[in-house]
């Protein structure tokens, strides 16, 4: 029998070995040369040389600090980040994938408070995204926003005037209906039917996703229904249906690039996709209904709470989000927009070619539809909302039914 006992003990011993993390050692002041690690996804793919330029400039300005860069593909970043944090092996500085990633990291005490940030340097709306209870726990490194792309040639052919910043939903619908010509495969409009679009549409319609206290959903109003219909009813009238392929990767940008789509709601990250299209196009701030509001997506950078070199790490985080070198590298290479407030430094961006109305990118960022704080079940809530909207879009449920079932699923998730 003792053989079995030995076997059981061995397995148990291994299990203990598996689960023991190591105790965090207290951070100490940095003196002498230090090496900090930086895990990122933002340079993933083509931007590694650009990141290297910024790192080199930083090390030159701070000869005592060496930055050891590790790059992880975006598709695996969330998994790697959580594994690292669970095991206590996260880098001193790491990328944060937007607001909801920030919220969960901050709520679990994984981020060090950043004391030395000069808040004037940053675009204040973006900086706020990474604040909790008035304290700064991370910094925005870049941002993109969602705008309305439009194909000027299709507008001209249909005799419709171009979108302006004073447009409302009604103007957009009228134009889309006029331009849509299904026989020719020309569609007037495209907007994803997702949670991200919905919370923004709610704000555009004077409503909101959450109640004031943030403890339950608040889209069960006529304004909430109208916002859902705004998205869902496009499908099959001015926008291709799911059966046509709507909702699959790159479907919308390909359709626009092929000259078969008059208006496209998407992020500023696809400018490059339309660099060589044989028609004229431009962008405008998205129309609102009762008010204008745009979705802004940012990437953040934070310092690990258990880092042994918090001071040096903070220095790098600030440099990577607001230094002149970082701003210039980003602007020169077209690697997403920096998050600084000084518009003079961003001036070169405005004249970098199509689209002409690049000012709209900055205008959109002044009226931000702030993404709701969904708490610990954020991802599950977003998934449930998107799934419900798609049920309505596919016609398997009415919009009202879909909203009811979404509410029934989401309210318990908000309660915890």
């Amino acid at each position, binding site marked *: 029998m003792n053989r079995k006992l030995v076997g059981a003990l061995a397995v148990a011993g291994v299990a203990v070995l598996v689960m023991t993390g190591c105790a965090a050692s207290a951070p100490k002041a940095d003196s002498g040369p230090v090496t900090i690690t930086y895990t990122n*996804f933002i340079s993933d793919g083509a931007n590694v040389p650009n990141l290297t330029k910024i790192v080199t400039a930083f090390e030159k300005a701070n000869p005592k600090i060496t930055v050891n860069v590790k790059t992880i593909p975006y598709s695996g970043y969330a*998994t790697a980040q959580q*594994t690292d944090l669970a095991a206590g092996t996260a880098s001193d500085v790491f990328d944060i994938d937007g607001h909801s990633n920030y919220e969960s990291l901050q709520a679990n005490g994984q981020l060090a408070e950043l004391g030395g940030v000069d808040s004037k340097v940053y675009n204040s709306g973006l900086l706020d995204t990474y604040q909790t209870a008035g304290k700064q726990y991370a910094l925005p490194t870049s941002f993109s926003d969602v705008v309305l792309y439009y194909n000027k040639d299709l507008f001209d052919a249909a005799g419709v005037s171009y979108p302006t910043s004073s447009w409302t939903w009604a103007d957009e619908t009228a134009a889309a209906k006029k331009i849509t010509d299904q026989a020719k495969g020309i569609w007037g409009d495209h907007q994803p039917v997702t949670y991200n679009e919905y919370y923004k549409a709610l704000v555009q319609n004077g409503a909101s996703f959450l109640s004031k206290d943030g403890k339950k959903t608040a889209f069960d109003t006529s304004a909430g229904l109208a916002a859902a219909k705004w998205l869902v009813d496009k499908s099959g009238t001015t926008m291709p249906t799911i059966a046509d392929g709507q909702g699959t990767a790159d479907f919308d940008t390909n359709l626009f690039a092929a000259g078969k789509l008059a208006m496209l709601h998407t992020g500023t990250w696809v400018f490059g996709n339309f660099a060589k299209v044989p028609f004229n196009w431009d962008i405008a701030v998205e129309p609102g209904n009762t008010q204008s509001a745009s979705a802004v997506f940012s990437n953040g950078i934070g310092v690990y709470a258990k880092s042994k070199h918090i001071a040096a790490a903070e220095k790098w985080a600030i440099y990577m989000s607001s230094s002149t070198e970082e701003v210039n590298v980003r602007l020169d290479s077209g690697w997403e927009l920096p998050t600084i407030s000084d518009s003079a430094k961003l001036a070169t961006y405005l004249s970098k070619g199509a689209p002409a109305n690049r000012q709209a990118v900055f205008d959109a960022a002044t009226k931000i539809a702030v993404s709701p704080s969904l708490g610990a079940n954020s991802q599950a809530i977003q998934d449930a909302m998107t799934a419900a909207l798609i049920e309505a879009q596919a016609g398997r449920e009415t919009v009202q039914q879909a909203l009811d079932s979404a509410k029934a699923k989401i309210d318990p998730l908000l309660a915890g």
Partner: protein
Amino acid sequence: MVDAASGLRVPKRRTFRTPEARTRLILAIVLHVVIVAGALAMFFPFLWTLITSITPGANLTNTPALIPANPSLGAYGKLFADLPFAQVILNSLILATITTVAQLITASTAAYAFSRLPFRGQNVVFGIYLATMMIPLQVLIVPLFVELKNFGLLDTYVGALLPTLAIAFGIFLLRQAINQVPRELDEAATIDGAGHFRMFWQIILPNIRPALATLVIFSFMGSWNSFLWPLIVLRSPQLQTLPIALAGLQGQYISQWDVIMAGSVVSILPMLALYVFAQKYVIQGVASSGIK
């Protein structure tokens, strides 16, 4: 040149005199047509990948054009220019080769023990081995990662390799093959005074070459395509493997499909070459082993 196993016999001389022969010929033709049609269906996605890879700025959702408008090898150039591609391929080759060799050793020895070395509780132990396949990797990742941290093996190939050594799939595959080797061969060898190590090396291994070649294919493929575990455990740029470098081409917002497909082609070809090589070995292995 006739294989009874298929139940379809192609006569060497074409004699259409008897109705039976005619039926056979028709069957053979049908078989060929079905097989070739199936092969086309199987080949299509690879062809699609290939075409997309030489179409600059390729789309995905539109019907693929069989002849690209202005084909270019630019995507392949980009692959080697933007990524440390030669390094990454070399890394993957090294890791996959070591993994394959190591798995061959652990799987064949364990399979021999389960097939030829009876001991009390053998079925239970084999059951435990099999059971290890039944827990999804996704849930083991965090504990495994913490464990390797405690061993100080993070960011090393040893750390990437060790957890793959307990390959129940391979042990099971080889055990089935060894069970099929006639026991008379063992007995004959035992009379010649062979111990277990000699028996394993001289009798069993040569007689399970098809299964070993099969395991080589799957071990190599498993390592070559492995994404999640290497992603988590290998962090230094100089250790990166191919699937992770290719995943880097799919960005947060936009993906370069022509380059991704070029990478896909480059990653498929070595596997295909290995497969063709290993398959030849399967046939030759049997021809020369001379089972009676």
